[in-house]
């Protein structure tokens, strides 16, 4: 029982982790709480779904297309909407909500309100680990996420662009003084963040039935993780993922699924009371 619960927790966590990482990058660098990433997640799911069912592509090509679509949406958002909004120092949050409404409803008009499903790669193959059973597909999702997180970390800590991103998230003015161009950095950040979110959406699509509002739940969980872990911190994301992802599955495994959302809520409030800046966060303001 415990093994099974932990395996489920690991799968849920690996998806949350990708989304939370994308959100925290954008939040840290751009200072935008990008709710529109809910649309990116949904887009990733639909693109992967269409690539497999309509174009008959292999799933890994579908993933690539989904990532590409997510990057295009995220970067277009940044260039066409967030940048002009920020130049007038208006509220980016509201712009994000506007984008979310537009993309969701365009999807609703195209695909209708029924839930979409298709079969995951590897079919019914399963892996037995101890007393637990997990589909091979979920194992590969966990593997992809486990590979993606260190890759992002290496990118941020070793490459010049990554260092520029981190510099900007720590101190915007300082970064500008030493000649880091905020426009280029914002472009890369949005591309990377959206790619992670789109990938998560595509990976989730064969497992859950989805519709135009698919991203909402993932974004809520991911934002909770970001807050619990501490805004703009990768270590925080990992700890937050562990707490929320496993906490939820432990409760739904041992107590009841009905109460698993309560866990999110109680944990969020508890962390806010005990350590308002998040577990790894730094106090600002």
């Amino acid at each position: 029982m415990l093994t099974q619960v932990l395996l489920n927790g690991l799968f849920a966590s690996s998806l949350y982790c990708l989304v939370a990482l994308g959100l925290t990058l954008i939040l840290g660098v751009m200072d935008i709480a990008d709710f529109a990433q809910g649309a990116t997640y949904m887009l990733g799911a639909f693109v992967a779904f269409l690539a497999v069912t309509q174009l008959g592509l292999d799933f890994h090509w579908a993933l690539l297309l989904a990532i590409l679509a997510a990057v295009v949406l995220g970067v277009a958002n940044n260039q066409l909407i967030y940048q002009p909004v920020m130049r007038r120092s208006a509220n980016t949050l509201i712009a994000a909500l506007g984008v979310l409404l537009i993309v969701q409803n365009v999807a609703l008009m195209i695909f209708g309100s029924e839930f979409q499903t298709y079969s995951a790669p590897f079919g019914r193959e399963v892996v037995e680990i101890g007393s637990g059973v997990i589909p091979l597909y979920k194992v590969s999702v966990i593997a992809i996420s486990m590979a993606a997180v260190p890759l992002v970390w290496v990118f941020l800590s070793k490459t010049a662009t990554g260092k520029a991103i981190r510099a900007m998230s720590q101190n915007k003015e300082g970064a500008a003084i030493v000649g880091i161009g905020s426009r280029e950095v914002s472009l890369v950040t949005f591309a990377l963040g959206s790619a992670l979110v789109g990938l998560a959406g595509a990976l989730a699509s064969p497992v859950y039935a989805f519709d135009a509002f698919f991203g909402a739940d993932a974004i809520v969980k991911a934002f909770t993780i970001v807050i619990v872990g501490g805004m703009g911190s990768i270590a925080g994301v990992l700890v937050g993922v562990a707490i929320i992802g496993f906490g939820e599955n432990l409760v739904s495994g041992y107590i009841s699924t009905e109460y698993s959302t309560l866990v999110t809520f109680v944990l969020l409030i508890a962390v806010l009371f005990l350590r308002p800046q998040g577990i790894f966060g730094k106090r600002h303001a």
Partner: protein
Amino acid sequence: MSAARIPVADRASVTQAAEPPLAPTAGMSRYIRLGAAVLALLAVVVGPLFVQSTLIQHFLVLIGINVILVLSLDLVVGMLGLSALGHAGFMGIGAYTSALLVMNQGFSFLGGLVAGTALATFFGVLIGYPSLRLGGHFFVVVTFIVGIVFNLLFTNLVEITKGPMGLPGIPAPEIAGHVFHDKLSYYYLVLAFILLVLFVKWRIHGSRMGRALTAIREEEDLARAVGIRSHRYKVAAFALSTAGAGLAGALYAHYLRFIGPASFDFLHSFDLFVMNLLGGKGTLLGPIIGPVLLTTIDQASQLFRPEPARIVFGVCLILIIIYMPQGIIGLVRALIGRRRP
């Protein structure tokens, strides 16, 4: 919080300070405003008597409930200068609490309404207390999450809320022997509560709390330096705001006589927020104009397909914050201000 007595002239200057500098104020305009207010009150009291269509009466009640919600939300958006995206969730708390207490525990309508309002306020304090201490995007993200979590609870706690099937058979309100069955009498009930909320807001505006909130919004560090306990005032304002949402929720539940989780989802929170911005945040009239306009458009668009309407809605939202950050009220003020030197 005792509302400090201040001279009328003083109160007027406070009002000016709280509003954007565009506000045209002349000595005479106070009487014009007073006259306009009396006329408007007459219109909303007498006008509906001549409305025969029950459909329009129904719209009027829904608009009224949205006006209460947005007036309450504006305590956070306008007076604190923060964004809040969970008010539909607090509305749901008020709705479910009142409906369940009246149906199962034999509460009277007013008892349920007060209990619903109180529980929403309690959650407002519980959430506002820790989250208002943090800067940046913390607060808005927390309100968003909380709104969604409330909705998940309405959906998932099937034994209490009957889940996605919703809660039918909520009795119509009864006050002192009068049952508010028809839409017209319900309209007057809602109107009475709108006036109550307006009165409370007006009192806050001229009180020590109103001035403290203005100071906090404009320059929090400075406000704290002169001894204003900013955190307390912020929590109080947020709690009052969620109280209003709970009240509106109770009114909504006993009006439709049926509630389900879908009525309190995050899209409704967005709608309320947009209504507030469109009308004009931080003003007395803006939170009334916004819901009147958008509820009308929204109800009209339901006669056709809702998706295109929502897409237009999203586009408008982006255009509004870029070109019209002060909303309709701000636009009107700018136009009037331009005419006068």
